[in-house]
Structure formats: structure tokens, C-alpha cells
């Protein structure tokens, strides 16, 4: 059934048992901490993503929010994939996820890069839900920029 492609077990798992949920302060007082709050005006979903970084490594990505299974599971996957990564590497993953979600189901995801994020391949076939999946990732991008790590081509190169 089509619905199984959208609601993969991995997505439902992340939704029911989210990883790293809750906004946290930085462990290392030297870190810059910044957050961004994004809303989806069509459905009212909200997410706040907070990034703690020394400018090189994303020491923590914490989040809180309310919304549908797709947006909330996506935040959980974002946390799991990018936390502890180098900024450049994190933005490569970010780019791959955005590319997957913009691909209308035509992009084959690389599990080595996207991990549990590959489960969202089915979501890309539902244009109305792509924004749900991207909500935490767009908030992350803003939060990271505010913490001083930008998603410019220079950074990801």
C-alpha cells in the first residue's frame, strides 16, 4: 500500500520515540549557542532547533516542537545524523536531505550519507508533506548560521 512508503517504520519509530528531544544548554561554555524557530503557516506545525558549536564541530543539536509525525520524526533524524559532526560534513548531509526531499521521489538516497533519513524518500512523493519533513532542517540551517556556521558553498567545499 502507498501509505507504507510514507509512514515507514523508521519514521514512526522516531515519532513515537524521538531521539534527543528537548532544548539543551551547551556542555562546553566556550560554545556558541543559537536557535531558530520555524513554523509551517499552512498547518501550524512548529519547531525550535538549537545548535551548540565551537565553529568547527556541531557539539549538540537539540530541538523541541509540535506537529505531525513527519515533521517531528524528521527533527529526531536530524539530531541523530548531525550531532557531533564537523560543520562541513553536516552541511553535506543537509544538502543531500534537501535534494532528496526536492526530488519528487526520483532521487535515490545514499544510506551512507543519510542514515535513517533515507526513510523519508517516500515523503518526497507527497508534495503536501515535503514542507513537514524540511521544517526542522530549515530551522537548523538558520540556527547554525546564527551560531556562526553558514551553509555557504565555501563552507561545504
Amino acid at each position: 500500500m502507498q501509505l507504507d512508503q510514507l509512514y515507514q517504520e523508521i519514521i514512526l519509530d522516531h515519532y513515537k520515540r524521538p531521539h534527543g528531544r528537548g532544548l539543551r544548554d551547551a556542555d562546553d561554555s566556550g560554545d556558541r549557542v543559537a536557535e531558530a524557530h520555524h513554523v509551517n503557516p499552512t498547518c501550524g506545525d512548529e519547531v525550535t532547533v538549537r545548535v551548540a558549536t565551537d565553529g568547527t564541530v556541531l557539539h549538540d543539536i537539540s530541538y523541541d516542537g509540535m506537529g505531525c509525525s513527519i515533521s517531528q520524526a524528521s527533527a529526531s533524524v536530524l539530531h541523530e545524523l548531525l550531532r557531533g559532526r564537523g560543520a562541513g560534513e553536516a552541511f553535506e548531509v543537509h544538502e543531500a536531505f534537501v535534494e532528496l526531499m526536492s526530488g519528487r521521489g526520483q532521487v535515490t538516497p545514499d544510506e551512507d550519507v543519510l542514515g535513517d533519513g533515507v526513510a523519508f524518500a517516500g515523503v518526497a512523493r507527497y508534495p503536501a508533506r515535503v514542507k513537514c519533513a524540511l521544517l526542522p532542517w530549515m530551522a537548523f540551517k538558520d540556527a547554525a548560521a546564527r551560531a556562526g556556521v553558514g551553509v555557504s558553498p565555501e563552507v561545504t567545499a
Partner: protein
Amino acid sequence: MTSIAIPSGMPQYDDVPRFDVARVRADFPILGRDINGHPLVYLDSANTSHKPRQVLDVLDEHYARHNANVSRSVHTLGTEATEAYEGARAKIAAFINAPSTDEVVFTKNSTEAINIVAYAFSNASLRPDADPRFRLGPGDEVVISEMEHHSNIVPWQLLCERTGATLRWFPVTDQGRLDESGLEDLVTERTKIVSLVHMSNILGTVNATSRITARVREVGALLLLDCSQSVPHLPIDVVDLDADYIVFTGHKMCGPTGIGVLWGRGELLAAMPPVFGGGSMIETVTMARSTFAAPPARFEAGTPPIAEAVALGAAVDYLTGIGMQAIQWHEKELTAYALDALGSVPDLRIFGPTVPVGRGGTISFALGDVHPHDVGQVLDSLGVQVRVGHHCAKPVCSRFGVPAMTRASFYLYTTTEEIDALVAGLEQVRKVFD
């Protein structure tokens, strides 16, 4: 099965006008569609209604045979188009029992109709010689309610920002009714206009307006009723309602998109300054200044949505042919059935009145903690089309402490089998998200 005999002399079951729903459904081509391998179950008519063949044919026929611009041509096609356009206006005036055809102003939709009134106030407020009823300034008040669609909130917020007037609102009770307990304090000599929804697009509540109208008259304010959800579903009589303005939109009443109506009392429309300037709305134009046509033309600048207006006239003919009282009763029975059926679903919470009295066939609900987006997605996979989200009424969602709701809404073509399909679909939702 036992049948209960109603004693003679009492109202009988068959006293209520009825129609053949299966025959009505056959008029709507889209209802024959499959969605994701299931027969379409369309429960989103409060969002937009479907269009019967009779309306689609008129739209097609207009472009195929009578296409021309209106109110400016001496040629035959221009005359035919003008007659069709003005004929539609007369049909709509009769449909709402407007005392004069000139009281019906064609707009793009309800939103535009409300904005025309708000901007007429705004324009009048800039001119010392304007009718004082439309002049707003600091100390004046505009009253709305907490159960409004955004289209009846934002234009008034903007108007108050421009003029320095204050926006106030009726609260909503826990049962989803308009809280009129503070009426005397809310609607006062400071009030210039009260703009209220007649039937809520999210709670389904039909507001009783007589107390409010009486108070509005007492303080000398004006009353606008947003009838976007009521005109398609109930018999509406503007004389009976005793409002000053009503607004509604064509696409929710079997008509096309892009056509709506502002009805206003003739004397008020005549006293209102224009809002949009352009062709058709003038009396005469010189390079220095212009004078303006009488209503309704004054408020219809530019080429109007001609074919859409004509098709809305056909929609009104269609609804009248079935009978608005019959449609109202059909939806009342569906609502009673749906409230019972939804009440049997575990963990389901209905927002708004839970009895089929003083409400229409629009029911919003929550299913446990499952997000409405997810509810809607699972239902869609079964062919069931419902609306999910904040329904352009975020203050209502906040009032009930939820970010979003799932909404099922009915119309003349809705059947009890479709409500059964919804309830079965909700069982499926529970299985996915248990």
C-alpha cells in the same frame, strides 16, 4: 424493525421537504472519481463544494456562445453577455431575498467583499465630509469574535491600525458557542461596526443573531454577517436577518471560484465611498477628478468575472430547484448521524456543539494525540478527503488549546455511507499510530 407512529396532528416525517440524494450525486461528475484506488468520499465542502453538470454547462456555454465584455458594447454578443451577467445578479438577489437587485455587488470572494467594506471605512475616515457612520478614529471600536475566519479578522486589524480605532471581540464558550454574556459592554456607543460569522467554518456553530442585531441597532452601529458557510447550506433572507451587509462566496455553493457577493442595504452602499478605481465604476472622468457610478457598479471596477457570475446564477437555480429547506434538513440529518457515529470512536474529541441544534454540517475533531496531518494522510489513502490544519481560524485552535484540527464537512451530495467510510478510516488511523 419497529416503526413509531407519530400521532396525527403532530409534525410528520414527510412534512419536511426531501430530495433524492442519488439523483443529485449523478449531477456531479467528480463524484464518480476514484482516489488512491477507492471511491471518492468528499468531506471537504466547507472548503469548496463540487460543481454540478448544470453549472459546468452554463460556464462552457457562456464562453462558447455569448462571450463579450459587459456594460459597454452595443453589439449583440455584448448585449447577451450583459443580460446574462445582470440576470445572474437578479437571481442572486432573489436567492437571498434582497429588496433590490442593485444591492448585490459582485466580488472575487468573501474576503474581497469584507475588504471592500473595511477599505470604504478607511477611505471615509480620511474625508471630513464623508458619512459619519463610516468614519473611524481613536476611541471608535470595531467588534468581531474569536470564532472568525482570518478573512474576518485581518481586514479589521488593518483598518484599526490605519485609523487608530480599537478592535474588540466576543469570546467563545467551551461548547463552541458565541459568548454573548458581555454583549452590553462589548457593543456600545463607541462601536461603529460589528462583523460576525453567521456559521463558523471550523466549529460548525450557527450564531443566533437577533440579540446582537437589537443591540447594534440600539447603539447605532452597523452589522456585517460573514455568510460564507451559511448561504450555501441554509435558506437566507437578508430582510429577516436584519443585517446591514452580508458576504458569501460562489465556490462553496456549487458555483465557480473567483466570484463572490457583497450584499449591502441600498442606502448604505449609496453612502459608501468607492474602494477600487477604474473602468465601469465611474460616472464621468476628467483629468482633474472623477465622479462615481451608483452601486453596485461603483464597487465593480474593471471587467468583472462575467462567466463566473453567470455560472453562479446557474448554481443558484440548481440549489433553488432542489430547495434550500430540503438541503438544510438533509444536512441536519447527516450532522445528527455523524455526531453519533464520531461519538462512537474511542479517543475522539469534537470541537464545537455536539448536538445537531444551532449548528451546520461541519464537524472538527481530534483523534487522540494523532496530528491532524497524519489523520488526513491516512484517510486520503482510503479516498476520504477531509481538511486538516488551522482552517484559517487560528484563534479558534488556540481557544481549544490545539495547533490544528481535522474537519469533515457535508453538503447536499453527502451520504451517511460516506460518514461510515470516515469512521472506518479513523479506525485505520488508530491502527497506524497506536
